[in-house]
């Protein structure tokens, strides 16, 4: 049988990797690569903001027509974009399992080894968090090579047995942001895990725990808000004081070269030609900002605006104004300014770093959790840090219910076009009221459907209710 053993030449196979400390590092680095895959999260479709009151599909009417189905809530389980998103997320989970399954057996520095595994568990939790809040119950894969006919596990089990334990392990074993230095900057850190853990507690209504975790990030004093709100999104803020976890990217091709099409997908279409122009800020969002809120201008690019010396003229085939049947303006040609990258060519947006977790959001998580946990006074302290930077007056409201609504609005303005609004409305049960007019159906659209391609391939899968 030795004679018949001819492994592929020029390639390692799974049995031969990872075997050394060096291999382990390679396997860990590969997990970060998955964060730049177009179909993962909202680089590609669906950009969930367009399902919220914050944004429209964007681009011109003929491009990306499938996305219109998401905007109008007319998509079905058979839409290919969903299957691609779902499969790519599990592909990213597989990369974490290469580390979680294989690295423990490698003889190497134990501290480093634990840090590698902790990064893997942080990223696995992040991927499962996206799956759970999007699809609800999903197959629970916790190791390499799962069975092909795995049924779905309840969402609560995904939180309780994967997301939360993983994040606790990551919190307890990862270095802080400043302990990661030099070439390791940008790796998952203790407080990134803690911030995501706080968010997971928020999603599972464990408010005191959420508040505790979020406040530990605040009290670490390693983070602060950028003085200028827009700096949080611009190159000068990359891996800056406000960055809790972000995805590094380089202005080259996608894949091995380090580029990310996230900003390219959403950048100004036409003149200047910086991208495809999806995820267009809505009039509803623009009009909802308080008058002095500096965040509106930092969020929305209007036609004829000049940014970094560049005149925004927009796209020819895209109507500057879209009217409804009664002649009312319902959309204007705008673009997402948070993904604006200075520069002169379409390649530059490939270097945009997606901000997965900002300190601004940590403060809002803290505020929300404290209010829900019965400490509105403490909540206001964190909330008003955000308002101060936005150029707005302090809020003093302490009625839990009213404050809850104010915090939700604050989240909308602080986190606009950062793919949180849709999920916020669903988890706070505000979706039917606010998104109903856009097509949201209560009892159905709280979850995306399981892709019908998956149901065909695995007879043990069940569909979400309403689909």
């Amino acid at each position, binding site marked *: 049988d030795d004679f018949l053993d001819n492994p592929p030449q020029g390639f390692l196979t799974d049995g031969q990797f990872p075997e050394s400390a060096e291999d382990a590092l390679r396997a860990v680095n590969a997990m970060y690569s998955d964060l730049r895959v177009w179909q993962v999260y909202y680089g590609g479709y669906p950009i969930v903001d367009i399902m919220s009151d914050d944004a429209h599909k964007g681009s011109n009417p003929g491009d990306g027509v499938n996305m219109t189905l998401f905007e109008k809530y007319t998509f079905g389980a058979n839409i290919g974009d969903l299957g691609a998103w779902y499969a790519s997320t599990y592909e990213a989970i597989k990369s974490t399992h290469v580390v979680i399954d294989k690295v423990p057996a490698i003889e190497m520095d134990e501290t480093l080894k634990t840090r590698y595994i902790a990064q893997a568990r942080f990223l696995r939790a992040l991927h499962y968090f996206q799956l759970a809040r999007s699809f609800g119950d999903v197959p629970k894969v916790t190791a390499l090579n799962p069975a*092909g006919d795995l049924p779905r596990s309840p969402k609560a089990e995904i939180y309780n047995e994967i997301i939360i334990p993983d994040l606790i392990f990551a919190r307890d074993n990862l270095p802080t942001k400043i302990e990661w230095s030099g070439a390791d900057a940008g790796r998952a850190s203790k407080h990134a895990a803690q911030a995501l853990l706080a968010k997971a507690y928020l999603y599972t209504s464990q408010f005191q725990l959420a508040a505790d975790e979020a406040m530990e990030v605040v009290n670490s004093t390693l983070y602060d808000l950028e003085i200028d709100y827009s700096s949080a999104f611009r190159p000068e803020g990359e891996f800056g004081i406000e960055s809790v976890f972000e995805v590094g990217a380089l202005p080259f091709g996608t894949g091995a070269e380090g580029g990310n099409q996230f900003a390219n997908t959403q950048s100004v279409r036409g003149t200047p030609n910086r991208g495809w122009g999806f995820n267009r800020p809505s009039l509803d969002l623009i009009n909802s900002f308080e008058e002095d809120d500096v965040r509106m201008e930092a969020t929305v690019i209007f036609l004829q605006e000049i940014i970094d010396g560049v005149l925004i003229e927009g796209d020819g085939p895209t109507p500057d104004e879209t009217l409804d049947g009664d002649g009312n303006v319902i959309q204007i040609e705008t673009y997402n300014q948070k993904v604006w990258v200075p520069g002169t060519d379409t390649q530059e947006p490939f270097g945009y770093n997606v901000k997965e977790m900002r300190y601004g959001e940590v403060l809002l998580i803290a505020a929300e959790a404290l209010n829900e946990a019965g400490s509105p006074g403490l909540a206001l302290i964190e909330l008003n840090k955000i308002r101060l930077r936005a150029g707005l007056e302090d809020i003093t409201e302490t009625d839990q219910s009213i404050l809850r609504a104010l915090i939700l609005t604050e989240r909308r303005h602080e986190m606009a076009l950062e793919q949180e609004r849709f999920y916020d409305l669903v988890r706070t049960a505000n979706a039917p009221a606010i998104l109903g007019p856009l097509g949201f159906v209560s009892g159905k659209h709280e979850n995306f459907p399981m892709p019908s391609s998956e149901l065909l391939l695995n007879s043990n899968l069940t569909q979400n209710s309403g689909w």
Partner: protein
Amino acid sequence: YSQITITGSVRDIATNETLPGVTIYANNSKNGVSADINGQYSLATKAADDSLTFSYIGYIPQKVAIGGRTTIDISLAVDTKNLDEIVVTAYGTQRKSDLTGAITMVKAEEITKVPSSNAMQSLQGKVAGLQVGASSGAPGSSPVVRLRGVGTFNNASVLYVVDGVFTNDINFLSSSDIESLTVLKDASATALYGSRGANGVIVVTTKRGSSTADGKPRLQFDAEYGIQVLPKKIDLLSGQEFAEVYNVIYPGSFNNIARVPNTDWQDLIFRKSAPVQSYNFSLSGASERNDYYFGVSYFNQEGIIEKSKYERVSIKLNNTFYITDNIRTGVNLVASPSRSNGAPNVFANAYWAWPSDVPYNPDGSFAEVRGGGNPLATIEYTNSETNSLVSLGNLFAEFDFLKDFTFRSSVGYEVEYTESTSFTPVFFVAPLQSNITSDLNKNRFQRLNWLWENTLTYRKQIKRHRFDALAGITSQRNHSESLGASTQNLIDENPDLWYIGAGDNTFLTASNGAETTSISSYLFRLNYSFDNRYLFTVNYRRDGSSKFGINNLYANFGSVALGWNITNEGFMRGTSNWLTNLKLRGSYGTVGNEKIPWDRQYTLVNNGENGVLGNDEAIATGSSYGVLGNPDLRWETTEQLNIGFDFGFLDDRLTGEVDYYVKTTKDILVGLLSPGHLGNGAFTTTTRNAAEVRNSGLEFQALWRDDLQNGISYQIGGNFATIKNEVLKMGRLTGNNSFIASGALGNGELVTYTTVGGPIGAFYGFKVDGVFQTEDELASSPSQDGQQVGDLKFVDVNGDGVITDADKTIIGSYIPDFIYGFNLNVGYKGISLGFDFYGQSGNEIYNGKNAVRPNQNNYEAQVADYWRGPGTSNTEPRPTAGGLNYQPSEYFIQDGSYFRLRTLTLAYEFPKQWMEAIKVYRASVYLRGTNVFTLSEYTGYSPEINSGDVLSSGIDLGVFPVTSTYAIGFNFTF
């Protein structure tokens, strides 16, 4: 008359062994008996003046006058003429009368008939069930060969066994060095090739030396010179016709049609004729201790367009040394260097190019040509050359011992070294036809395969029982490696600088890959024959292959076959005057296909999964697992049932064979989508043994030959075969609607669809029910958004009232319903005239070059009869530039049936007495036409549109035309 009893014995004249079972009958009294187990007989007959006839299958019958004798001993001679032709089989030879399998052997004289670099071209129309079709008319191209349909979605190529060495192509062999090509068709014939036999096997036997009457070596010299011509042009719109059609689409574009130029691009790119020539020299002979054959051949074919050429030298050496009476050793070697210049691919371009544009500017430079660019410029700026050296051979030793045993050990090898260079200079014809920096590509490929086979044979005849057994152990290892590099912006365009070092390093790219596979096997065969009446064959092979997944390293294949020589039965005696031979055969067995995407068994570690990390944002190199491997991966298994009979009538003037087969291939490897949670990523498939395909057909082959009293001899032969191909399964995990879409036209459209119930690679698109004649018809019929009157009317197959993708259906298949060939040869006093015809019927061609309309291109002539108002045309829609009429549909489907005069040969062999005077043993001269005419409705150059990809064949995207050739040749033997 008194009754007498005659006794005696019957023996084989050569071996002097007794022959049991010989039929003896008295010609007047019609009494008859069979010789007993010891070859003895005793026959009572009335007539003293009677005569006896001794007949036995495989032997020349003898009539003996009794002449008053009571004891008549007789010796019969083997009939070498026909029946006991020795046929090449897997790992050996067999008497034809003993065969149980479906085997067709083609001899040397047929093999050199077609002027081609590849001997397989000569088999077109010669063997029932064997389809040989050109993939291209380019010099040096190998044909696509399919035996008994298509039984896999992967590589369906037959296996060639050249002097015992396994190979995938025989393009390196000179036809003049081949003694015979033997086509092994059924499981009984192929099972000894185990995991490599499922697509059929062609055993190539090269020429050996044999002793001559005068004991001197035999020298042979052959020369042939031919010219190739384009058999037909495609009828395209002229410049004015094109301008008129174009004005319908874009009114006013040509405002003075009378002055529009009329360029015939086909006339410009094709040469009037191109030469093809071959010269062969051989020296052969044998002495008591040695036989030898040495051949040198040169083949040179130029293409029908400039810059395409193939030339090859082939050197052959076969040598056997008879060291002692029971030990032999020898070598069979071929070495073949070749050079080819890749044909510039301008055929689609010349088809698309606007006839209203001219080739040259007034200053002589290439003019801009719409419709894909200026084809002449493409030819001018294409430079491609491939040099190759292939060598194949074996060294063997044989040892006879204990009378009936022979041990043979053979070491075979195949080496290939190929280097190719292509260079594109800087040029500017038009913005879309220009090259800003020069480009250079270099590729190197090398292969070394070796094979070691040890076999033991046992041959024994005990009375009426004949045994022929074989057992063997073999192992083989194949290794190949490729290395490629490319660069740009060379310091100079001089060919002396076409090396990577002369390029600009910033553009340097390189690639490198290698593959090693191995296989180790055990094989066993038993042929048993009782009384020359009942035949039994069993074959078994066990293969271990590195191409199989770790969980299925070994595979077992085998077959059982029975034969019955009915005419050797006593009760058939009365028919022997008209029925010479009738044999029934049946076989069943399994054979495998290991030409599968074997690396899918592994989960590979992908490099380049890089993170971007660090204060200064830099690449952090990463690696992780790619698509999940399938360690259960295994061979594809073909189960084949074959039932056939052989017949010979009228002293074997009419002989033939009929076979029916059903061949079911299971566990076909197919890439299937896998559940997302397995983590293989979006749109990726995993490879599984999941599909099933059935081929079945009836094959018939017959030959009538006779010599007339007046010195005229003639023969008429023919064969036909039906093919039915059906996909039975596509894999359980993908549901009933699973399919493979393939057949990419290059414009985003896929035109083939492989699914359960249809043939492999069926054409898929809309059915067309004419052209919308009126607004009323359009309004009242199912239609698509944007369709107008004058557009193609697609059929609402699912009856839902609208035309959607769901109405696409199977609209054709590249697999013919039947193929046939027949030949006629007449000879008279050294002059002979021969015709070989070939045809196929029931297949379709997708005229892909017509369907691709990325830009406005020229059209075929029938478009001039376009719809221009109600009732004007119900076949040609209104002219459009792309759009709805260019979706995949029956409009682009054409009948691919054809009938062709494959070769026409007029030969003259000089009279022996003349030749003796000038010391020439044999001399002949001939004139030959190849592809003399082809009857076909297809509008392209040739209906031979074949691709090696079984999922997307029969699609014409602008193929290199197959030419007609007219040649003169000489053979001299000294």
